[in-house]
């Protein structure tokens, strides 16, 4: 009977924990929004199981046989073993309820390695040089302006944004961004925007860009550089990966790691650890309050 009651308590504990996370809004620290519904549904399942355990305990108390089948044996008689096993279940609950919640920050980002160039793996198409062969599709779509004196603005845009079959969505998005005088990196398409900026860095050179994130610093960055980063989460925070953009600012050292900042600056490139990466020459840094959701999510509808 004690076993049934302990189990009922643990199951209720987990169900309450999920409700607690939902009520306090902390759920988004652990789970991506598209998974939240399933986690909430599982709370109902846990409740149902807890109620059943109480029911089974009462049945036993009243001297009835186990209602499901007569085969239920008492779990291991060893107290030590049971303490370990139930302790294992209680541990995450204690941790969840008692330890104050923070967010993922530089400590984990440095373990996972921050990507400073958006999603890698896309083939960067060559610079918009009219003489050099560019991506096949764009070359067909828009002949070089030299041959077409009346080339419209769309043609020169197409030249700036050559694409292959995989980067088509980024090229289209890039053209949209190119038209803006100030490119503000949105929460919803954080990774996609950084990837686009990196893919078409020549086109965006010197553009004014604005973004927010937490301060991330590596030793090699020195006193005048820092990276503005966000964690991108797919399902749960175990698969969250940090993405960032390098910032050059003379007083970069004034900003402590994990501080949330908003940065405005002009896009350029710099060399870091032997790679040429996109970089912001900052003109304005501002400390801000941490946003409601520290994470960004890949936009599954992109492209």
């Amino acid at each position, binding site marked *: 009977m004690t076993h049934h009651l302990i*189990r009922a308590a643990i*199951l209720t504990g*987990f169900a309450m924990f*999920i409700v607690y*996370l939902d009520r306090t809004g902390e759920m988004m*620290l*652990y*789970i991506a929004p598209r*998974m939240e519904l399933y*986690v909430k549904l*599982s709370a109902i399942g846990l409740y*149902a*199981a807890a109620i*059943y*355990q109480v029911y089974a305990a009462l049945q036993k108390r009243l001297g009835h046989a186990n*209602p*499901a*089948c007569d*085969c*239920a*044996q*008492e*779990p*291991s008689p060893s107290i*030590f*073993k049971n303490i370990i*096993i139930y302790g*294992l*279940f209680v*541990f*995450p609950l204690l*941790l*969840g309820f008692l*330890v104050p*919640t*923070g*967010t*993922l*920050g*530089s*400590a*984990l980002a*440095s*373990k996972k390695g921050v*990507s400073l160039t958006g999603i*890698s*793996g*896309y*083939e960067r198409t060559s610079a918009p040089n009219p003489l050099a062969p560019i991506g096949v599709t764009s070359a067909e779509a828009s002949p070089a302006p030299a041959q077409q004196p009346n080339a419209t603005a769309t043609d020169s845009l197409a030249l700036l944004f050559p694409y292959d079959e*995989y*980067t088509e969505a980024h090229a289209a998005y890039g053209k949209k961004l190119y038209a803006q005088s100030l490119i503000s990196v949105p929460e919803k398409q954080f990774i996609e925007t950084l990837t686009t900026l990196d893919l078409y860095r020549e086109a965006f050179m010197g553009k004014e860009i604005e973004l927010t994130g937490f301060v991330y610093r590596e030793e090699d960055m020195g006193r005048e550089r820092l990276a503005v980063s966000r964690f991108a989460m*797919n*399902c*749960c*925070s*175990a*698969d969250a*990966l940090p993405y960032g953009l390098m910032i050059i600012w003379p007083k970069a050292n004034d900003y402590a790691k*994990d501080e949330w900042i908003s940065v405005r600056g002009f896009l350029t490139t710099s060399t870091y650890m032997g790679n040429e990466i996109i970089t912001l020459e900052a003109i304005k840094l501002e400390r801000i309050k941490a946003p409601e959701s520290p994470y960004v999510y890949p936009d599954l509808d992109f*492209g």
Partner: protein
Amino acid sequence: MLKFLFRFGTPLIGAGCLVMLALILTNRELPAHLFSSANLQSFKILFISIILEAFPFILLGVVFSALLQVFVTDAMIKKFTPKNPIAGVLFGALLGLLFPLCECGMIPVVRRLIRKGMPAYIGIVYLLAGPIVNPIVYASTFTAFRTTPTMAYSRMGLAFAVSVIVGLLLYKFMRRSPLKSVTPASFAPHGHSHSHDHDSAGKGFRGRIASILSHASDEFFEMGKYLIFGALLTAVLQTVIDRSTLTAFADQPLFSYLFMMGFAFILSICSTSDAFIASSFSGMFDFGPLLAFLVFGPMIDLKNTLMLLTTFRVKFVLILIALTAGLTLVGAWIMEVLL
């Protein structure tokens, strides 16, 4: 209780002292580094998020397994499983298309199927192929590797091939049941045969509901302890191990395969989201190691090895891991050379 205290108290204190001595002698900074609040926060968030994410799937698995237990008779399973071993192995490898469960939900279901008379080798094939060869995982892999769609096809293909080969080998060489023989003292209250269950299932709707809840909640505790322990280890490793120092191996040809497979084993993330992790490595690693990561991870990882050990004999689990790892390595390498 007092007896317990006297019996285990002294050894526990002794062990604690030994750990402290070791820390003093070697590197005193380690615990400070481990428990610094940033690391504790990372650990807490990772640990709980893995558990939360697995809950829906594990519940789905135990409920599905309980439904099988209560509503599907042994005779029905026997009727539907092909008699021919080759057809059986193919059937097991494609069962994931019908029942797309992820690996945490898979183990209780497979165990139930084997107990109900499905040949063990078919069950194992489903266990290996199911988490990969299914529409949900195909879609997520395709999304994550938009630039290399061959990744999604090769992942499905290689997983299918590996699981079929493992299944045929098991059919040929496995003589004993791989399931643990159950001792009455084990924590598993439902570990023995259920021949009487059909009587209780006949008690009408209420009896069946009670029976489903009873089986599901018992199984939840049985699987849950390993899930939580696996999540604990995974979270500790993810907080402590520095990814960039490990990726120094990326250039060594054989090492990069082994590294990615070991990494998949440690990470223990669900097969629906691991493609996104893999794609974050695509700049660093070649096609082959990434494929090995994507195929080996869902089949065998830290979390599910612990869960496998609840159900199957230790020797069998070790052989299964070795077989799967070997075949994945060779398969991924062949794919890399061919594609």
